[in-house]
């Protein structure tokens, strides 16, 4: 104590000191009766100085804690000693208005069993402690609910902590894990050279080991593929560094990847086979067919005198069937070739394109082909869209059965796509055939009446679907059909 402070105290008494103190002070007698309370105590508990003198210490704590407090006070009276704050006791204060607060109390024994108690409101400190505890609990719950096993090692590669998933996946218990050398765990399941190398050599230099994949036969667990990620947790101030290891079980993912690769390979070879098949068909079926055609032609020419009318008719039918089969083979080839070579999307003026298509089809005089006015210029694979329109219009022309044929072509903007339509007033199609007509080699008429390979609509469907669109038909039998197809604006 300095001379200066002595001077201050000389001019004042103890009362003055209590009155100016910021902390609540109470003096109680051996029976707990309150003898004196300072203004800070009045502010803390909400009693006036006069009211305080009628109270005991027990009146200042919640009812539920009073009984035990009486015993504690009695015990203290037999062995009075100075007790400072934070002596491991949970103390709760009770205000006049019934409100409770977390408190800490310092006790100083006075004479005749009297005690000076200084009461501190520690509500804010408690709240901070609770928030900290909650944050810690939150962090721990995250670690524990993580799907990935993780384990923390100290500098000696002993396990400091691990989460529940780690124990579950690698079939370990907390008891046999914590404090143990990681590489010696459970039949040395982690004693893997690549992992040792990462922990001992890579990590000390790089702080974060490159995540690496490890396939390992774990004793009693089986083969697992795990992605291991290691990083150093820098110790604060004098705390040592720790190593955090996380394990991502990618066994299933690896299996699926392998499965996917196998399927893609299968698909590729099937595709390759199909391509070869088409090639073989073009050669090996066509050569004999051509021979049949030529020989039949020569018999018809050379043996004309010897053949009767029936024989000549038979030869004519034979040659016709050869041509039909030739058409079928060409159809298969054209169909199988779609999508093998992708064109680049170019600007296509639909008016121009449709006029070219219609010109090339040369519709007979009784059929009027009308193209809606003001069709847009679009970006598309030109040959593909040309083929689709050509096949649809050619079909409409081929099957038209009315003396005044009408074919109307339109294209409307649907926002994300264009919708084309080719409408005719032909014979129409029954709804039950709507699916069938788009299949390869399906025709609704005997081939002798309308020469058709049954490839046209199948090609239309394949092209449209490969461009990400749809094709369908609406029809009223007897009155006509409308074929629709869509073309995505951004499929290219």
């Amino acid at each position, binding site marked *: 104590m300095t001379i200066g402070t002595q001077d201050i105290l000389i001019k004042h008494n103890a009362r003055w000191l209590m009155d100016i103190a910021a902390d609540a002070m109470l003096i109680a007698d051996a029976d707990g009766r309150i003898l004196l309370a300072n203004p800070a105590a009045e502010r803390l508990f909400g009693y006036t100085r006069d009211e305080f003198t009628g109270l005991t210490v027990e009146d200042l704590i919640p009812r539920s804690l009073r009984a035990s407090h009486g015993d504690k006070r009695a015990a203290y009276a037999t062995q009075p000693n100075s007790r400072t704050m934070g002596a491991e006791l949970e103390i709760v204060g009770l205000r006049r208005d019934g409100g409770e607060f977390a408190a800490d109390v310092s006790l100083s024994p006075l004479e005749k069993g009297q005690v000076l108690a200084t009461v501190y409101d520690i509500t804010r400190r408690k709240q901070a402690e609770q928030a900290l505890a909650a944050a810690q609990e939150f962090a721990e719950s995250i670690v524990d609910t993580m799907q990935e096993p993780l384990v923390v090692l100290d500098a000696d590669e002993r396990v400091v902590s691990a989460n529940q998933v780690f124990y579950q996946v690698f079939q370990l218990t907390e008891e046999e894990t914590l404090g143990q050398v990681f590489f010696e765990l459970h039949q040395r399941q982690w004693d893997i050279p690549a992992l040792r190398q990462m922990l001992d050599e890579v990590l000390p230099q790089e702080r974060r080991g490159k995540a690496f994949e490890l396939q390992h036969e774990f004793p009693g667990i089986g083969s697992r593929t795990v992605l291991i990620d290691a990083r150093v947790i820098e110790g604060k101030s004098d705390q040592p560094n720790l190593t955090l290891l996380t394990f991502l079980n990618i066994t299933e993912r690896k299996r699926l990847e392998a499965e996917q690769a196998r399927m893609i390979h299968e698909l590729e070879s099937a595709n390759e086979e199909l391509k070869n098949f088409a090639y073989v068909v073009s050669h090996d079926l066509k050569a004999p067919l051509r021979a049949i055609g*030529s020989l039949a032609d020569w018999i018809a020419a050379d043996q004309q005198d010897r053949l009767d009318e029936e024989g000549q008719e038979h030869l004519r039918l034979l040659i016709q069937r050869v041509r039909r089969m030739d058409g079928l083979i060409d159809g298969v*080839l054209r169909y199988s070739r779609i999508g093998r070579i992708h064109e680049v999307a170019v600007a296509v003026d639909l008016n121009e394109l449709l006029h070219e298509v219609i010109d090339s089809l040369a519709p007979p005089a009784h059929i009027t082909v009308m193209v809606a006015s003001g069709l847009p210029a679009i970006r598309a694979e030109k040959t593909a869209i040309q083929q689709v329109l050509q096949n649809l219009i050619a079909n409409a022309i081929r099957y038209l059965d009315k003396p005044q044929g009408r074919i109307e072509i339109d294209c409307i903007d649907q926002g994300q796509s264009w919708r084309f339509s080719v409408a005719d007033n032909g014979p129409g199609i029954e709804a039950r055939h709507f699916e069938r007509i788009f299949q390869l080699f399906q025709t609704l008429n005997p081939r002798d009446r309308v020469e058709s390979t049954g490839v046209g609509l199948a090609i239309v469907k394949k092209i449209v679907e490969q461009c990400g669109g749809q094709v369908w038909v609406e029809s009223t039998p007897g009155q006509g059909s409308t074929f629709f197809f869509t073309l995505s604006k951004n499929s290219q």
Partner: protein
Amino acid sequence: MNPINKPILLIEDDQVDTMVVRRALKELHVANRLEYVENGEEALAYLRDPAREHPCLILLDLNMPVMNGIEFLQAAKADPELKRMPVVVLTTSDEQKDKVESFELGVAGYMRKPVDYQQFVEIIRTIDAYWTISESPA
């Protein structure tokens, strides 16, 4: 076909196709002699035989056993003695790959064999007309 005293060499394994070419040439009164071999290997042997007269034109099938048409072209174009000889491919194949490879190997034409005999005759007529007018390096 020019020159008229030189033969046409047909490289073709299909007997009827050979008959078709022979008959078409006859029908068109093409005076050149027709020589024929069954695959690329036989064709190389023919062309490298000093006793044989070099043809004015080779008609080449692509799909053949032993040595196919593309392999023949590779060998012929690598041979300084043979590389300038005009070759017209006469095939069933409509494969883009075959067309590209053929022209990369310097063929003078690529004709698809039609199933219809009369169309075949027209093709041979066109080839004959062209090679009657065209000059050849040999």
